[in-house]
Structure formats: C-alpha cells, structure tokens
C-alpha cells in the first residue's frame, strides 16, 4: 500500500486527499501545524465579525476524516529528507512517504518597514493571525490598513464590524489597482466611503511609530502625515510559503517549481496550491495563482496523477470572485487593469453606483475576452461557454438575460445594458429585454 503524505490541510491539500481516497486505497496522511482540521481560510473574517464560529468554517465534520481513512497529524514539519523519503517534525519524530504533496500555502508579505515588528502590527493569513488579531484589537479605537487588495478590504470590514475606525492606505489611484480597471476600482472606493472607511489613495507608508513600549501608536506616510492608531494591518499581498524546501534539492523560484503534472524536479514530490509555481503556465494564466479555486483544481488534478492516471493540470476559463462589504464581484476570463492592445471595453454602471459590468472584447472581431461583474450575479456555466466558444460582444449582450443568476424578484438590468449597447453599436443592435407584467407592477 502506497503512503501519500500531504503537508498542508488547506483547500489544496484536503482536496487532493479526498480525491486520492476516492480513487485509491492509499494510506493518506495530512499534516498541519496550523489547525487540527480543515477550515475555510476565506471564512476567517466571518469568525472575527461574529457571523460564524470556527466550528462553522469547517467544511467537514470531525468524524469525516477517520471514516474516510484520512489520517490527520497536528505537527510542524522542520525538514524533509528527499533521498530517504522522510519527513522530520519539530518534536523530533519522523514519517516516511511514498509520494509527497507540498501544499504549504502562502505567507504574508512584509517589506521591511521600520516598526513592522511592533506589537499591534500584523498581517492576516493563518488561524494564528486571526487569534493574534483578536488579541491585538482589544480596546482599539482606530486602525490603519496598508495595501489595496482582497485581504486589506476584508480586514477593513472586520475592524469596521467592531466599530473600529479604519484608515485605509493604498498606493494606487483606486482600490485593487493591480487587478481592477479604474471604473470598477472607483465604484468600490465609493462604497468603502459609504461605510465610513477613510480611504487614502496614492498614499505610501514611511514608518510605523513606536509608543515607547514596543507597541504601535501611529504611522507616518511618505508625505509626512502622521495618523494615530493602535493597530496596523499589513496586507500587501502574500508570497508562496517555501521555507521548508528553499534550501533543498527541490527547485524553487518565488514558489516551488512544478511541471504541468504538478511534479517538482524531485521524483514523487508534488506541489499544489498557493506554494506552487508553474514552469510553463497555460496561456493567459500566471505562474503563481494564490486563489482558493486554483488550490482546489490542483488538488483534484494531482490526485489523478498520484493514483496512476497521469493528468496534466489544465484549468478552464479563468474565474474569480470576491465581496467588498456589500458588493459582490465576479470575474470570468481576462480583464486587465488597463485594456490590452487590440481590445476595447464595454462598460455599464447602474445609477446607484453599486452595480456595473465591464466586457473586454477584441476591437475588430468583437470576440469577448473577459468580464467583470459587480453587484449582479451571473451564471458561471453560461460565461464559461461564451468565453471558451469566443462569442462576440453583440451575441453576449443580446443573450445576457440567459446568464442572470440574481435571486427571484430582483430588478433585471439587462434591458438597460442592452440599450446602452445599442446606443454605442448602432449597426449591431440587439433586442432589448422586455419587462414582465409583475416586474412593471413592482418596479
């Protein structure tokens, strides 16, 4: 019986374990120093906000693991002997494996700011970070967050839920500037302001100030402005957690280098999820994608290879999602912060400034490359088909109601979107969705 050992019990590692179990009778051991059981990392914020307890964030009940013969170990790994196929733990014990999957996730970035080691300064990634944040934010009145990305806005929402005043510093001219185009970013900027978040765009951190007792008392920006606070959240992105293998025979760059079968250069050693870096990423995909969905898909895929059915990792059409306070965000396909060469964009925004859609298409052929949706839910399946079949903008706008996934009775915006399209493309006009009888009554 083969022994498959997985380091990391996040979504990548656990998905791999579940699928290996489905496909084989391998002995499976999942190791984590973080928590006893798999939990949803994306749900950490909800524990702090009181929406859920930690128990609620566990996708499987505790009996699930023994029932499915997946052994869980709560240990920190200190080193791996790849020649002897042996893992050594912090407590001195060791474990041998036949195949090893590295799913060690990410670490928060710290860019060496003066004062970043003060008490009350932290990032947010792990369960331990959450516990620290609970500790660090006791009796805190105001906080500063640095970094306009997903974790930053989550942290803002978390602190805001406890009545802590948040000043939010971002380097770019609008929120999430390295992913979102201007219009969408501005829409979120406005929404943050609506919630009372003090957003400071194009503001950079100079240093974090010490209160004399090793605790943060404020920050200084590059323009010399001092902002008082008792807590600083550093959320300037994450990087692959490769400490364990950095100085080993496993090839690394920013992440652990893997081929299309997710294998490292060492036989029987695989890397998946946030920690993996693809040597030859598929077209239009980045080599490192620290996203929940990618971790899941890599876990699904590597399980096949490990159980004897060699399978290449071939992600489908890119998709991602997030929620910024009350506004949901969905992205299918490629939408860059600045429209790529040869492409144009179609943009519609609702009068309430809380919903918008941006479609990127090839200027000449009108083939659609990607879409950003804010505040309107659309069907993954429909967009996946449209994008993989390279449908044109007029086709998609004409059939937009088909993609709608909003709950029943919600206002339909497709008609308005189609009218805007018709006014911009008078030679390609599409039929405008008519409102139903009940819609007219309740509108």
């Amino acid at each position, binding site marked *: 019986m083969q022994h498959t050992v997985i380091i990391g019990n996040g979504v990548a590692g656990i998905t791999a374990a579940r699928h290996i179990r489905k496909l084989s009778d391998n002995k499976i051991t999942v190791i984590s120093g973080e928590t006893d059981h798999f939990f949803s990392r994306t749900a950490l914020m909800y524990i702090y906000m009181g929406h859920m307890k930690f128990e609620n964030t566990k996708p499987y009940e505790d009996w699930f693991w023994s029932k499915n013969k997946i052994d869980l170990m709560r240990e920190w790994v200190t080193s791996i002997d790849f020649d002897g196929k042996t893992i050594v733990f912090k407590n001195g014990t060791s474990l041998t494996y036949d195949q090893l999957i590295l799913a060690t996730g990410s670490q928060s970035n710290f860019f060496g700011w003066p004062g970043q080691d003060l008490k009350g300064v932290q990032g947010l990634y792990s369960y331990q970070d959450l516990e620290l944040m609970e500790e660090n934010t006791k009796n805190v009145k105001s906080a500063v967050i640095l970094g306009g990305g997903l974790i930053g806005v989550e942290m803002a929402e978390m602190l805001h839920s406890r009545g802590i005043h948040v000043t939010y510093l971002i380097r770019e001219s609008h929120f999430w500037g390295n992913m979102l185009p201007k219009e969408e970013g501005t829409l979120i900027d406005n*929404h943050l302001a609506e919630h009372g978040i003090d957003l400071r765009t194009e503001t950079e951190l100079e240093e974090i100030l010490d209160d004399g007792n090793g605790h943060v008392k404020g920050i200084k920006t590059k323009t010399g402005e001092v902002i008082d606070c008792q807590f600083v959240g550093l959320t300037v992105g994450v990087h692959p957690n490769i400490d364990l293998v950095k100085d080993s025979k496993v090839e690394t760059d920013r992440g652990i280098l893997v081929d299309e079968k997710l294998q490292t250069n060492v036989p029987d050693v695989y890397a998946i999820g946030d920690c993996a870096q693809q040597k030859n990423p598929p077209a239009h995909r980045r080599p490192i994608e620290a996203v929940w969905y990618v971790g899941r898909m890599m876990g699904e895929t590597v399980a096949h290879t490990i159980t004897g059915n060699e399978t290449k990792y071939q992600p489908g059409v890119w998709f991602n999602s997030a929620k910024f306070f009350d506004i949901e965000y969905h992205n299918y396909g490629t939408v860059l912060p600045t429209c790529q060469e040869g492409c144009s964009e179609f943009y519609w925004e609702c009068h309430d400034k809380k919903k918008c859609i941006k479609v990127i298409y090839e200027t000449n052929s009108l083939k659609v490359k990607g879409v950003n949706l804010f505040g309107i839910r659309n069907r993954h399946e429909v967009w996946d088909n449209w994008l993989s079949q390279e449908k044109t903008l007029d086709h998609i706008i004409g059939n937009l109601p088909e993609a709608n996934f909003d709950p029943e009775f919600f206002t339909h915006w497709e008609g308005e979107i189609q009218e805007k399209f018709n006014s911009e493309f008078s030679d390609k006009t599409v039929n405008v969705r008519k409102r139903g009888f009940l819609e007219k009554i309740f509108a």
Partner: protein
Amino acid sequence: MKTIRYTGLIAFLFSLGLFLSLFFTSTYTLTEQIFTSNVKAEHQETLGPELAGMMDREYSLSIPFVKDLNAAVNTVNERMRSEQQWDKVIYDDYAGSLTRASTSGLIQDQTTLLFILVFIVGAVGALMFILPQIQLGGPAGIKHNGIFFNALNNRGWIGMLTGGLLVVFYVLLYFYPAYITNWIILVDPVQKLLNPGATSSQWFLYGFLYTFAVLVMGVRMIIKYRHSKYQIFRTISVMFFQTAFAFLIPEILVRLNQPYFDFKNMWPLDYDFFDAWHINMLTTSGGTGIFMFAWGISLFAIGVPLFVFFFGKRWYCSWVCGCGGLAETVGDPFRQLSDKSLKAWQIERYLIHAVLIFGLLMTGAVVYNFISGTNSILGIDTYNYLRKPYGFLIGSIFSGVIGTGFYPFMGNRVWCRFGCPLAAYLGAVQKFKSRFRITTNGGQCISCGNCSTYCEMGIDVRWYAQRGQNIIRSSCVGCGVCSAVCPRGVLNLENRDEDGRFNQPILLGNDSIKVSN
C-alpha cells in the same frame, strides 16, 4: 438616532414587564352570585358545598384560586365516580369561567388602557428600536455582525431567559389557561372590536399575540433584508396570511354566523380537520361549510402536489404557513442555532416520518369511526389511544412548547424540521417530483459555511455547493437566506427544468478532469 433606539427598547421592555406583571395583579373573589350565574343548575347542588370555603374569600393570585376550584370539582367528580353516578360527573370547564368572573382589579377596570400600554406602547417601542437600523446599521446588505457574540442569538443568558419564558407561556396557554385569565381579559377589547358578541378565549389571546409578533418582527425582517426583494415579498406574504387568513377572516366568519375556518391551514398540520365534530360542524353549516370542507381537502390533495411541482414546498412553508410565518419573522434571530450535523439529519428523518405515520393512523381511525359510527378500531379506543395522545404530544408539546419555546435553543424551525407531518408530505413531493432546486453556480463555492450556518432547517448546504452539486433536499423550505448570505453568489433558488436538477455534468472550472453527479 441611538437615543430613539434605546428609548424604544425601554418602552418595549416596560410593556413586556407590564404584560408579565399583569399575571400577578388581580384579586379573585368567588361570590354566591358569580357561582349561581356561571354554574349549571344541576351542578350547583353538588359543587356548592365544596366551594363553600372559597366563597367571599379574596385570593391575590390566580394559581391558588384555580387550584381550589379544581380541587372542589375533583372532589365532586371522585365521589360521583365512586358512587357510579356517571351523569353527575362535571365535564364543564368551570375553572376558566369562574376565574374570569371572579377577577377584579386593574385588569377589569382599565382593560383598554392596559391594552394600549402593553400592545400599542410595546409595538411603538419595538419599532423605535427596529426602524433606526435603516440608518444606523449602514447600507443595505447582510447584517450578521456580532451574532455569535450576542447573548440572545447565541444561547447566552438572554436567549435562555427568552426560551424559558416561551416554554412557560406555552405550558400555561395549553394546559392551565385559567391561570392566565388576566392576559385573556387583556385582549378582550380586540375581540369585542372584531366580534362584539364574543368573549376572548385563550386561543384568541394566542392568535392575537402570534399575529402581533409576526407583524412587528416582520418589519424587522424586511428592514434587515431590504436589499433582497425575495425576502421582502416573502415576509410581506407571511405577514398577510397570518393577519388576514389566520386571525381576521375566521373571526369575521364567526361574526357572520359561519364556522370558524382558517383557509390556509391544511391537514395533516391541521390534525383535527377530520374529527367528527369538525366534519359535522362544516357539513351542517350550509353551502359555506360544505365549501370549506371541499376546500380543505382540495388544498392537500390537489394544491400540494400541483404547487410543490411548480414552486417547491416553499409556496406553503415560507410564504403562507403560520408556523413558517412565525419562524421567518420572530424566529429569524435564531436561525443559526439549528444543528447541521449528519446525526441531526438522521434523527430528523426518523422523527418527522414517525409523526407523519402517527398522524395518518390517527386520521384514518378517526375517519373510520366517523363513517362507521363507532368509537374504536380493532378494539382500540380511538380517542384515548390515538386522537388524544396525538393532540397532546404532537399538537401541544411538540408543535407549541418545543416548536416555538425552543427557538433560542435549537433554532427557529424545530417543529417544521423534526415534527410537522405536512412538511414531511410537502418534502416528499419536493424531493421526487418538483422543478424546484437550489442551483449551485459552477465551481465558485469557497466553502465558507455561511449558507449552512444560516440554514434554519439545518441543511448542510455547503456539502453540496462545494462539490458543485445542486441542493435538492426534502426539508428545504425555500427561505432563500443561503442565497442571500452567500458572499460569492453561488446559490440561487430556482424553478427550472425538472431533468436538470441532478445527475448532470458539473462545471468545476477545471478542464483536467470530468465530474458528474
């Protein structure tokens, strides 16, 4: 704004306190005159001597007064039974009528004023507490901050206290209504308004409180979910059906000399529908009665399969039903307390189907007796061994005391989930023959757990969503909260092609492998 809120809270707590303290306020004095005008002539002779000690004695609490009354009746009955004078055994409920007639004090003198102080001030106070949330609570969206830190919402001391009060209230209401005579008198002005010839009963008190609670907490629900038209329409629907169908129309029917009838209540939830007295009452009330009887049968025989096929069981459970109406309004603060474990699901399936079978057996026996004109079936006395235990165990204890009293302990759908035979029936249709499902949107689930946490029926929604499977569960009442709380827009309640519900290829977003389920 905050001042308004806290003033409202104080007003509400004042009303609640006043309501509770009314239990203790009156004095009770039985007089010869009350006795003779409330007790039947044939009972006066036997009961009179037993009550002699109570005459003109002032009691300051209802409990000893009612106890002494009941003791007197019991003494008479025991003696008559031992002497085998069966015709002299007293079956009338003199505790209720005598206590009411003997009550004097504030509640009798100032009924209307007290009514205003309790219910009008209470409602205004509650609304003052609720309405400012539109502004204070921030922009429309999910409002679950701090739920699990809250002593009411997370089985803290306020929750325990609330649950305890509810349980005590239900026990008094069902089994010791004479104790709460003061509360029954309190709602008499409304009873008189609707039907000047009637006097409020324990059931009128219950109906009024129920409707009052659904309306006030319905406003809260609408404000909380004001970003979702589905939630707004659904809440307005349950508020309407409770107020019009369950509360007003039956009273108006009685005023028009028609049978008391709730047009939206349905067998087998309405378990006495086929009781001989009920069938007789309807069939002897002319055309209207016959129509009601036919309506009641059509509702479960045709309405259920038809509407569940097109819309799922939600058309009833979370849009029309009274129990559902209470759960979706008053119960909303407790929805996260339902148990999501597999174990709970197993218990649920055994329990709810056992109640359904019990209900079917009981009804079958009752109908058999009605048709054959007998009192027993296969040698078993139907009333004592089937109908009465069902009414006590299921009708009172399960659906009332536990069903509502346990909101703060086990979530707001304890009855609907574990006990309601109608829910079991609707659920069976929903599972096997319906267009309804909760659609999972491709591979977008992040397993966060909000859907499962806030599912009042204890469905582990995430179990399915994270696999990309649609959710087709007989217990789903279609409240739509999983869809509302999902931070990634993964879940949507839909009535669509029946064939597409399950066993379809699943979109994972991963072209490496294929999964279907």
